[in-house]
């Protein structure tokens, strides 16, 4: 108890120290926002408020943008999930038919995962040009890497036992996959898949802003044109989109009894 308290106070001072050090290093003034609060407030209240009501073509563009963003997130996650499942078989210590593969596959996945989707987007945009297709690939890569790890852990978590019995009966590797691993891990896979959809929907908006298309790009064009009222409307629309999709995934989790 006593030592725990001391640990916490040491931790607290470390964090304060780090904050001061990094503020000095980056030469920014953390209180700037307070000095400029008035400006900031004026910006929000005068420029953004009230949200503009889109009509006609503008409304259509916004809806199309939202649809594109959702589709990008959904399709990227789905494609990534299928690829990740196949890869995860070789990343799992328990089922991989190749003894040394887990180490390499996991290392590879960790490497891919440590590069955020946004960075992938920039790398790909500069080599392949902009467009929803490239945004899709960027999202795919990052969620693929994430799901490889998650799926492999799920496979390792289920007991080795039921796989052993299938092997003992003479089942081939692919039969073990379809009759042992899939039925016992499907719930875990779906749960990670839904989580990835939520993450990708958010990233897909941001990736869109830097050239991936969808609602992100629509928002950026209004921001660049100083049309803040319309931008505000779009930001609200994005918030509603995220909330709705989260509600949907939560509903699915409950229905599928994943919690």
């Amino acid at each position, binding site marked *: 108890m006593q030592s725990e308290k001391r640990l916490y106070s040491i931790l607290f001072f470390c964090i304060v120290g780090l904050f001061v050090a990094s503020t000095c290093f980056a030469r920014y003034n953390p209180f700037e926002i307070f000095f400029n609060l008035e400006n900031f407030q004026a910006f929000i209240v005068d420029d953004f408020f009230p949200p503009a009501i889109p009509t006609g073509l503008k409304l259509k563009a916004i809806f199309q943008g939202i649809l594109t963003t959702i589709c990008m997130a959904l399709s990227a996650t789905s494609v990534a999930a299928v690829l990740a499942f196949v890869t995860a078989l070789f990343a799992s210590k328990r089922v991989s038919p190749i003894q040394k593969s887990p180490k390499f596959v996991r290392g590879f996945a960790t490497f891919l995962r440590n590069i955020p989707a946004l960075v992938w987007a920039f790398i790909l945009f500069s080599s392949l040009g902009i467009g929803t297709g490239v945004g899709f690939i960027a999202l795919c890569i990052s969620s693929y890497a994430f799901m490889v790890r998650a799926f492999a852990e799920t496979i390792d978590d289920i007991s080795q036992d039921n796989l052993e*019995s299938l092997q003992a*009966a*003479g*089942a081939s590797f692919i039969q073990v996959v379809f009759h042992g691993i899939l039925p016992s891990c*499907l719930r875990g896979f779906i749960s990670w898949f839904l989580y990835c959809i939520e993450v990708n929907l958010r990233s897909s908006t941001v990736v869109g802003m830097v050239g991936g298309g969808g609602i992100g790009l629509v928002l950026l064009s209004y921001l660049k044109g100083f049309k803040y009222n319309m931008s505000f409307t779009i930001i609200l629309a994005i918030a509603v989109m995220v909330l709705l999709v989260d509600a949907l995934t939560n509903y699915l989790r409950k229905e599928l009894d994943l919690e």
Partner: protein
Amino acid sequence: MEPILTFDHVTKRYGNGVCALKDVSLSVRPGEFISIIGPSGSGKSTLLRSINKLISTTEGNIFFDGENVSALRGGRLRKNRSKIGMIFQNYNLVYNLSVLQNVLHGRLGHMSGIRGILGLYPEEDKEKAWTLLEEMGLEKFCYNKAGSLSGGQKQRVGIARAIIQDPKILLCDEPIASLDPSSAKVIMDLLKSTAQKRGIPCLVNLHQVDVAMRYSTRIIGLHAGEIVFDGEPESLSDSVLERIYGTSVTNLVAGTSDEKDWQQAYAV
């Protein structure tokens, strides 16, 4: 009769240097019901798992059904495994699938290609699964999830899954270690009767000596990877038991509550 299984000077050394089997030689003939007894870590599971090459051995040869198991790989190994039924302490069922599907898993070794992947079992296999489940008294649970069954019922599914393979030998690794005494008795009776009816030899790892005495036609005693006894239950004397378990008989008979429960189960 020709032996169906032969161990010829088999030794197993694990990577960490543990010698789990030391120069083991034995043969098994059809119709035998053999119990393997020995203290924990004496190599019982290793012996059983080396027969279907879930564990590969270091030295010596194992011959099963006329083939040298140690040399088998790939498709030939699968074929060989499909002739060996195995029953596990933890049942090893896929709990999210139905009882019927779990029983049919026993046929996977006989199937190949897309039908095997999708589980499109022939009609005759399904009928056989039904009959077996009836024999096990589980016909009511065919479509229930395997995870929803009790321990004893799960093990009966395990037996059905092994028998549907049409095996030439049954390997049982502590089939009753996770069961209460009365379901343990049901399982041992079922095991003995189903195997005997079909003339399938059985190798059963047990840690209850009295159960081994009651059911076996032959008992093999392992101590630290070596066979220290191989004979009929009648000749299993106290001094032999002491050699197997490396402790005096009074310690063994002093009676874990487990053994008392067994006696009660039989008294009923």
